[in-house]
């Protein structure tokens, strides 16, 4: 059993329950949909109240909102339309992420109980962000990376995760990226940079199994002059860092020499895995925007029917 849960500052939690598949099992939309669990009791204890999360299934979502839901959750719209995919969240906004608060997740399903605990750390904002050409190919004056400058607090144990979204228009009129995307190995900790101010860069992440042209051709992994990029720099816990640091090594697309690593799971009583409870800090209440071009478009937001 796989539990993928996230909670961000000012956002309600979002929990998905799935099952593992045999590695060589045939994959179709129906087989993927069958891995989602729809019958469970999910609760979160925020230290004062035990909140029973509401189950929200895709068959209740109007078709006009499916694409927004797909963009927010990362689940393909075709799967949402063709199968009843359920998630657990708090629809009345009575449970929102708060910095410094500890949350205890409990999942009861199929006779099993899974628990996990996490704390939203106090956020550390980036000092600045900018775009710089990569200069990796001769005469290439359009492709580059987003850089950031961070002053790490002088306390060991800080970890971070990087997201970025291209909010400028694509050919279909929507934003190039439907949500903030994290590239592989998007996390780091302060073991070697504790208390230091340093610059770093990240490549552009993409949707898994993307077939978009700029995720296949020479622009793969690069930001381009003309893009408007929204950066979301999050502070996460060390356990979440260990999970995200270990899982990308096992999920390369063409893993010819795939490392047999086990993801640093966090769930007790597991016959499956708990992903993580995620936390986010947004700089000044809005994501930091790198204007490589004009004013950004507002990204689509998930709206659940009440």
């Amino acid at each position: 059993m796989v539990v993928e849960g996230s909670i961000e500052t000012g956002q309600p939690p979002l929990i998905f329950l799935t099952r593992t598949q045999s590695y060589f099992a045939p994959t179709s939309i129906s087989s993927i949909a069958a891995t989602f669990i729809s019958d469970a009791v999910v609760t979160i204890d925020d230290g004062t109240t035990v909140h029973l999360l509401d189950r929200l299934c895709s068959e209740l979502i109007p078709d006009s909102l499916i694409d927004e839901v797909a963009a927010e959750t990362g689940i393909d719209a075709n799967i949402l339309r063709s199968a009843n995919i359920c998630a657990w969240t708090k629809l009345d906004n009575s449970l929102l992420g708060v910095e410094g608060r500890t949350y205890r997740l409990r999942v009861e399903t199929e006779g099993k109980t899974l628990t996990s605990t996490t704390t939203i750390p106090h956020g550390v904002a980036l000092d600045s962000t900018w775009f710089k050409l990569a200069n990796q190919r001769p005469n290439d004056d359009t492709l580059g990376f987003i850089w950031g400058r961070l002053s790490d607090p002088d306390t060991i144990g800080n970890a971070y995760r990087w997201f970025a979204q291209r909010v400028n228009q694509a050919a279909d009129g929507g934003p190039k990226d439907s949500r903030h995307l994290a590239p592989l190995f998007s996390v780091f900790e302060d073991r070697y940079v504790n208390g230091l101010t340093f610059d770093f860069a990240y490549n552009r992440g993409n949707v898994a199994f993307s077939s978009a042209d700029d995720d296949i051709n020479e622009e793969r992994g690069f930001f381009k002059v003309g893009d408007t990029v929204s950066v979301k720099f999050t502070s996460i816990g060390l356990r979440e860092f260990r999970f995200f640091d270990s899982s990308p090594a096992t999920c390369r697309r063409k893993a010819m020499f795939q490392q047999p690593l086990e993801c640093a799971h966090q769930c007790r009583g597991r016959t499956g895995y708990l992903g993580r409870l995620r936390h986010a800090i947004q700089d000044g209440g809005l994501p930091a925007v790198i204007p490589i071009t004009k004013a950004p478009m507002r990204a689509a937001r998930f709206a659940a029917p009440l």
Partner: protein
Amino acid sequence: MSAASAGTMARPSLTPPGQAVTIPVNRYFIEGQLVSDFTDRNGYRMAPYHRIDLSATRNGNETKEVKDPVTGAITQVKKRFVSGWTFGVYNAYNRRNPYYIYFDPSGNPAVGDFQIVAKQVSLFSILPSVTWNFKFDPARCMGRSTCLRCSLAARRRSRSISRSQNPKWWSRAALRPASRR
């Protein structure tokens, strides 16, 4: 050719069951990314490794006939330089022994054509080999008439013969005044 040695047959090499590896057995998705779930360390065995190697060796003559320039006798002396040929074949029945296994994903789960195929890499199929071996002894005379060592040895032999046949040479040397020795 008369002293050619018989060919040799290599014994088949048999090894224990296949090498232990750690492979994925389950998969799941996190944020749309495929994550592999592996067995316990070394929890899977690849196919056994075995092969048979065959070879035949033909060595050249190690001796040759040499006529003594002094006595005219023909003797067998060891050659200074000896060579031979070995013809062989590795993995005679062309078994594809596993070197490693990797997994090749393709397709897109959202489209429904995603699949993972396990592929085995083998290093060598049947592999013929030809080897030329040689050995030489730098200290051994090759028996030529121009060999300096042989001529010096022949001269020593002739002196020893003449000395033994003419003892007066020795006696004359013994009676030679000390000033002339």
